């Protein structure tokens, strides 16, 4: 199941999308996500779906791979779907006691569902077609101007890099600790909420200690490799705006314009 989480995973490639400056992609993703909430009807969603599918196609990441990433959140999508379907007031279509499906409910459920799916695909494409280090470089650069008001842009980006790097490691560690404690008779599954919370102590304490140990070792290794903060650091692949970034930004503007026009005119 853990391997099914495509959000945060990188799919190597050298498509146009891969080569775009990360800042273009981050801003593009944000704009897309906001645009998703400006869309209110079928035509709007058609534009949104077309837009993202075009990006997926250019990125050459298999759609099947991306859709696999929807599996873990499938329940949430289904849940949202049903909540909207049954809880929206309006023109009743079918009803049985208090379970009422309205026309508005059906519309809302359908569109909210699509919105969620597109949200996930949109975010996934960002992480699938952008190396983690470039993602954090991009965030660091975008937050750069905020350094003047005290935002530690570089440190935040470095924290993100390290977090991304160690999430799989810590997940594995959790698994190992759980198994070791279960072998000593620990029971993580039964009992009421209080009992279950208490049973987590043999899991959480070793995990925290592991995390601290990793942090200590890592800090030493980073210092040994001459890390001294963000000043004067270069990058192997420097971020530069190329022609394709300009084209992509124009495409993005065109996309937003289309969405807005659609809302106003239709």
């Amino acid at each position, binding site marked *: 199941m853990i*391997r099914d989480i495509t959000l945060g995973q990188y799919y190597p490639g050298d498509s146009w999308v891969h080569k775009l400056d990360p800042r273009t992609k981050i801003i593009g993703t944000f704009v897309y996500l906001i645009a998703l909430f400006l869309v209110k009807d079928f035509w709007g969603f058609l534009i949104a779906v077309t837009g993202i599918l075009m990006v997926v196609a250019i990125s050459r990441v298999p759609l099947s791979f991306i859709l696999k990433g929807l599996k873990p959140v499938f329940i949430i999508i289904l849940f949202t779907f049903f909540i909207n379907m049954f809880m929206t007031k309006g023109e009743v279509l079918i009803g049985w006691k208090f379970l009422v499906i309205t026309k508005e409910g059906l519309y809302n459920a359908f569109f909210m569902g699509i919105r969620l799916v597109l949200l996930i695909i949109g975010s996934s494409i960002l992480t699938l077609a952008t190396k983690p280090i470039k993602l954090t470089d991009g965030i660091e650069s975008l937050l750069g101007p905020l350094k003047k008001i005290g935002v530690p842009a570089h440190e935040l980006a470095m924290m993100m890099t390290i977090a991304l790097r160690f999430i799989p490691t810590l997940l594995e*560690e959790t698994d*190992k*600790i759980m*198994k*070791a*404690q*279960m*072998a*000593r*008779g*620990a*029971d993580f599954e039964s009992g009421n909420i209080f009992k279950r919370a208490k049973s987590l*102590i*043999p899991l959480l*304490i*070793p995990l925290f*200690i*592991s995390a601290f140990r990793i942090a200590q070792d890592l800090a030493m290794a980073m210092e040994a490799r001459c890390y001294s903060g963000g000043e004067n650091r270069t990058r192997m692949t420097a971020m530069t705006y190329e022609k394709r970034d300009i084209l992509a930004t124009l495409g993005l503007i065109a996309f937003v314009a289309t969405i807005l026009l659609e809302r106003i005119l239709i």
Partner: protein
Amino acid sequence: MSIQVRDLTHIYSEGLPYESVALKDVSFSIEDGEFVGVIGHTGSGKSTMIQHLNGLLKPRSGSITIGDVDITKGNVLMRDIRRRIGLVFQYPEYQLFEETVHRDVAFGPTNLGLTKEEVDQRVIEAINLVGLDYDEIGERSPFELSGGQKRRVAIAGVIAMKPEVLILDEPTAGLDPKAHKDVLEMIKKIHETQKNITILVSHNMNDIAKLVDKVLVMEKGRIAMEGTPRQVFSQAQKLKKMGLALPQASDMMNKLRNRGFDIKEGILTNDEAFVELVRILKPDIKG
């Protein structure tokens, strides 16, 4: 009490595109009181196999009979299995969490539902059995101890459950020579005093040769070889093909054999190697 494993098969992520066969038709038996060594390179299925023995993993097919209970049957309680099968993972000191050594070692027996008196007694016994001084460390925080001591405390935590079978996965990994020797001695002593089945998974062929009655060699999820240490380590070519080494003494004797010397088969220990060398270098004395 014996262990019978028949046609054990385990597939990871079955049905998904990246499914992989971890164990295929693994069958073997272990007699009461036997000391078994499991060797095989990383990825051969050793860890997967031992996790089936204490019920942490369920097989796709096959059976595991411990004593007279088939633990793969649905109605068997996990808690009962873990009572009987103790499993010490690699780097077990990473599982320590309590405020004092006593309380950490007490975790296992407490989970078994024993009375406080029984638990306390088991804790003291277990700590002594692993060669530590209860009076000295019982009330100290486990995190203050040295690496070797921490490891022994972690092992004590499993022994305190008085399992009928003790499985140890690379118990000497990462230890310096002295700690390595001490832990090995400790395992030998525990096996001899408790007289239970002990299963040792290790990369260290010298350790295996020294301690075990029977060796199981795993490769690609199957049992590739089975026999006494002498039998298994005599098959140098086969082991080499699997990427496995020999105990140092056997390896040196094998080198000499390849140079044309008539070396006795099945030499495992440094002492045996010495005797054999004397035999071939001073034939006039030994005659």
